[in-house]
C-alpha cells in the first residue's frame, strides 16, 4: 500500500511537471485516488515538488473537498442551502443518516460511504439536491434518499444513480446528468440567435484596441456582481507592464454565491460562446493563455468542457495563429476548485490557481497589474465573456441599446425559493422587481434576497425598484421567500454561511461575523434590548469597512439590510430591561449545575 502510494503520488506530481504551482491539481488527484491526502502523502508531495510540507498541508486543510483523513469511496454531499432547507432537506437528511447508520461527517464502518453537508451546489431550482462524488442528484425526497443508499450498497458506481437525463447538453454523452437547465425566459443577448464564432472572426479583423473600444462603447460591465466596466479592465490589463511575463485571461466559474446557478446553465449550453469570449479577451489584452476556474461542484461538466476545448483546438479556434490570424496564439486550461466560496473572490481565485490556499491578496496591485503569477490578468465572469462574444458579433450599439441607461444589455437571473417557476431568466436590465416576481409566479412574496447572502434582502415596499447596477445589483441570485418564512432564521443561516466560509485571514471578518451572529441569536431568543440594534449596525459597518476582501465587506449585509427593510421584526423581539443589567445574563440559568449538586436553588434575595 505504502509502495503503491509512493509510486502513484510520484506519478501524479510528475504528470503536473513537479510544479508547485499546480498544487491544486496534484492534491485533487491524490484525494481522488486514495480518498484523502494522508500525512504520508503530504510528505511525498512536498519532497517531490520541492516545497515545505506545511505548504501542502495548508492547501489540503483549506478546501472542503480535500482531507488528510480518509473519506469513503463515495462521498455524499447534501446541499445545505436555505432554499434546500425550505424544500424539505430535513427529512431527506434524516433518511440518509438512518439508512447509512451514520451521522453527518462520518463514514460507514466498511469505509465505503461518507455523509457530509455542503453549502449551495448551484441547484437551488431543483432542490433539495446532493452530490454523490461528482454526480448530481436533484429533487431529493426521502424515497430517493433510500434509493440512493440501497443502490450504492449494491454498487458504488455513482453513474448508476442517474436514470433519466436532464434537458439539452445535460444528456450529452460526456455529461449524462439528471440536472435540468430550467431556462424559463430567453433574452436577446445570451439566448438570442447566434452565429457561432462570428464575434471572434470580427474581433480578429480589428485591432485589439478597437475590440476594447467596442467593449467600452457597449458599456459592458462585469456580470459577476461587482459591475466593473469590462472595457476598462481589459485596457488596464493590456496597458500594464508585462516585461518578462505573459498576460492571462481568467474566467471565474466559481459560482458559489448561494442561489446562483446561471453560470452552470451557460457552461452546459453556451460553452463555445464562453470560450469564444475568452479568446476575444485574450486577443484584446494580448494574452496567450486562459484559465477557466471551475468550481468543484461542477466537476460533472469537466469532461464535456475539455472536449469542447479539444474541438476548438482541432478547428483552429484555439492554438497557434487562430483562424489564420498570424501571431495570435491562445489556449485555455481548466483549473478545478476544491470547495471554497471565497475562491469566487478574484484574488482568492488567483491564489487558488497558483496552487495556494484560497486567501485573498492585498489590493493594490489589482489583478490587471499583477494577477496570476504576478502577471497582468483580467478576471471576468462566465456571463461577461458570453456578452463580449455577442457584442463582437452584433455590435456595440446593439448591445448598448438593450437594458437600461446605466446598465446596458440583459442579465441572467437564477430564481429560486417560493415561486412557481424557479429557473434561469434572461431579462433586460432595469426590470422592476414586481414584474420579475409576476413572471416567476411569486405573488405575495414576503421578501426577496437580491444578489445572494452578500446582496440585499428587500420587502414589498421595495418591489417597485429595478434590477440594475444603480439600484438593486445582483450577480444573478434571486431568492424568493413566501409569507410563511421566518426572515431572521434566514439571516441567521446566512451568517452561519459566512462564518464557515471566511478564510480567517483578517480579524474583522473572522471575529466580527461571529459577534454579529451571537447578538442576532440573543435577539432571536428574547435576550435583546433596543440598543443591540445600534450595536449590530455599528459592528456591521466596522466589519464592512475593515475587512480585507469582498467576503467581509459584504458579510454583514443580511443583518444590515434586514435591519433597514424589516426593522419591525427586530423591534418586536427586543425589550428594555433594567438599565445597566445585561439581558443575556440569567442567574437562574447560571447556577443550574450547582443547584443540582447542592439540591437547592439560589438564595432568596435579602
Amino acid at each position: 500500500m505504502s509502495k503503491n502510494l509512493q509510486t502513484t503520488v510520484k506519478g501524479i506530481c510528475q504528470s503536473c511537471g513537479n510544479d508547485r504551482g499546480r498544487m491544486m491539481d496534484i492534491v485533487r488527484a491524490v484525494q481522488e485516488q486514495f480518498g484523502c491526502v494522508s500525512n504520508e502523502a503530504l510528505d511525498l508531495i512536498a519532497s517531490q515538488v520541492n516545497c515545505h510540507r506545511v505548504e501542502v498541508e495548508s492547501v489540503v486543510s483549506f478546501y472542503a473537498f480535500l482531507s488528510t483523513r480518509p473519506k469513503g469511496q463515495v462521498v455524499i454531499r447534501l446541499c445545505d442551502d436555505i432554499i434546500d432547507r425550505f424544500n424539505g432537506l430535513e427529512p431527506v437528511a434524516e433518511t440518509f443518516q438512518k439508512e447509512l447508520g451514520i451521522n453527518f461527517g462520518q463514514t460507514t464502518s466498511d469505509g465505503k460511504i461518507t455523509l457530509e453537508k455542503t453549502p449551495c451546489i448551484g441547484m437551488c431550482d431543483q432542490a433539495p439536491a446532493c452530490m454523490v462524488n461528482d454526480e448530481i442528484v436533484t429533487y431529493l425526497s426521502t424515497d430517493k434518499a433510500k434509493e440512493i443508499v440501497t443502490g450504492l450498497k449494491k454498487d458504488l458506481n455513482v453513474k448508476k444513480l442517474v436514470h433519466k437525463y436532464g434537458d439539452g447538453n445535460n444528456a450529452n454523452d460526456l455529461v449524462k446528468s439528471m440536472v435540468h437547465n430550467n431556462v424559463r425566459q430567453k433574452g436577446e443577448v445570451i439566448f438570442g440567435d447566434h452565429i457561432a464564432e462570428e464575434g471572434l472572426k470580427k474581433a480578429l479583423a480589428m485591432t485589439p484596441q478597437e475590440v476594447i473600444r467596442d467593449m467600452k462603447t457597449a458599456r459592458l460591465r462585469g456580470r459577476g456582481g461587482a459591475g466593473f466596466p469590462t472595457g476598462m479592465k481589459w485596457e488596464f490589463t493590456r496597458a500594464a507592464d508585462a516585461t518578462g511575463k505573459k498576460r492571462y485571461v481568467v474566467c471565474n466559474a466559481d459560482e458559489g454565491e448561494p442561489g446562483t446557478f446561471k453560470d452552470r446553465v451557460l457552461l452546459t449550453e453556451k460553452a463555445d460562446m464562453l470560450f469564444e469570449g475568452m479568446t476575444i479577451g485574450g486577443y484584446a489584452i494580448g494574452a496567450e493563455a486562459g484559465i477557466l476556474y471551475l468550481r468543484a461542484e461542477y466537476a460533472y461538466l469537466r469532461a464535456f468542457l475539455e472536449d469542447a476545448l479539444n474541438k476548438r483546438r482541432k478547428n483552429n479556434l484555439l492554438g497557434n495563429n487562430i483562424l489564420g490570424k498570424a501571431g495570435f496564439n491562445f489556449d485555455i486550461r481548466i483549473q478545478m476548485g476544491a470547495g471554497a466560496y471565497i475562491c469566487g473572490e478574484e484574488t482568492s481565485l488567483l491564489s487558488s490557481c497558483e496552487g495556494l490556499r484560497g486567501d485573498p491578496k492585498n489590493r493594490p496591485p489589482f489583478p490587471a497589474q499583477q494577477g496570476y503569477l504576478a502577471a497582468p490578468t483580467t478576471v471576468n465572469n462566465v456571463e461577461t465573456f458570453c456578452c463580449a462574444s455577442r457584442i463582437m458579433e452584433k455590435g456595440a450599439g446593439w448591445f448598448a441599446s438593450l437594458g437600461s441607461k446605466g446598465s446596458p444589455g440583459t442579465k441572467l437571473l437564477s430564481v429560486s425559493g417560493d415561486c412557481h417557476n424557479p429557473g434561469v431568466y434572461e431579462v433586460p436590465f432595469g426590470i422592476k422587481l414586481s414584474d420579475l416576481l409576476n413572471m416567476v409566479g411569486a405573488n405575495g412574496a414576503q421578501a426577496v434576497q437580491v444578489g445572494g447572502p452578500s446582496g440585499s434582502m428587500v420587502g414589498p415596499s421595495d418591489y417597485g425598484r429595478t434590477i440594475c447596477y444603480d439600484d438593486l445589483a445582483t450577480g444573478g441570485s434571486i431568492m424568493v421567500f413566501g409569507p410563511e418564512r421566518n426572515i431572521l432564521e434566514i439571516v441567521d443561516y446566512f451568517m452561519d454561511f459566512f462564518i464557515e466560509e471566511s478564510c480567517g485571514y483578517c480579524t474583522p471578518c473572522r471575529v466580527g461575523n461571529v459577534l454579529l451572529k451571537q447578538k442576532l441569536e440573543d435577539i432571536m431568543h428574547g435576550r435583546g434590548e433596543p440598543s443591540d440594534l445600534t450595536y449590530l449596525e455599528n459592528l456591521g459597518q466596522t466589519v464592512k469597512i475593515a475587512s480585507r476582501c469582498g467576503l467581509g465587506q459584504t458579510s454583514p449585509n443580511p443583518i444590515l439590510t434586514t435591519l433597514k427593510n424589516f426593522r419591525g421584526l427586530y423591534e418586536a423581539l427586543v425589550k428594555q430591561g433594567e438599565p445597566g443589567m445585561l439581558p443575556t445574563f440569567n442567574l437562574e440559568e447560571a447556577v443550574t449545575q450547582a443547584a443540582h449538586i447542592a439540591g437547592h436553588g439560589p438564595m432568596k434575595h435579602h
Partner: protein
Amino acid sequence: MAKPKVATTSLAGCFGCHMSILDIDERILKLVELIEFNKSPIDDIKVFTERCAIGLIEGGCANEENVRVLQDFRRNCDILISVGECAICGGIPAMRNMIPLKECLDEAYLNGPTVYNPSGKIPDDKEIPLLLNKVYPAHEVVKIDYHLQGCPPPADTIWEALVALLTDKPVALPYELIKYD
C-alpha cells in the same frame, strides 16, 4: 460641593488590585481630598449609603453573591470600572471554565490527595452562595464603562485614571502604564 463618592469591591479576585490601589502610597492623602469612600473594604462600609460616582470592580463573578454585589454596584454607581485581569477576563478563577463544576467540587471535597472529609459530602448549606456554572467577566453580567488592564494594574495607572475621571479630563495613560511585556 460634596466630594464625589467612590465604592470598591473584590469579587472573585485575590485583593491584589486593592493592594495596588493602596500602592498609590502618600497620594492616598490627596485622594481623600478629592473623594470620599463609600461601600468598600478600605473603610469597611458594608452597604451603599449614598449614590456613588465611581465603582471599582476587582474580580469576575464565580458565585451568586458576586453577581448580586456586582448588580448592586451597577444600581448605585454612575460609572463602573473593571480593574484587572479577573474582572476583565475572569482571570485565574476562570481556569475552571474548561472543567464541569461537578468535577471541580469532587476534586476539591472528595478526591483530592490532601482531602480529609469523613462526611463524604460536598458542602450544601443554604447559606453558602451557589457557584455559577462558569466564571463570568464583569461585563458579561452588567454594563461596564471602563476597563483597566493589568494583574494588577499598576498604582499609577489606577491613580491617573481616577484623577482624570474625577477632574473631568481625558484619560491619557502613557505607554509605560499600559505595557505589560
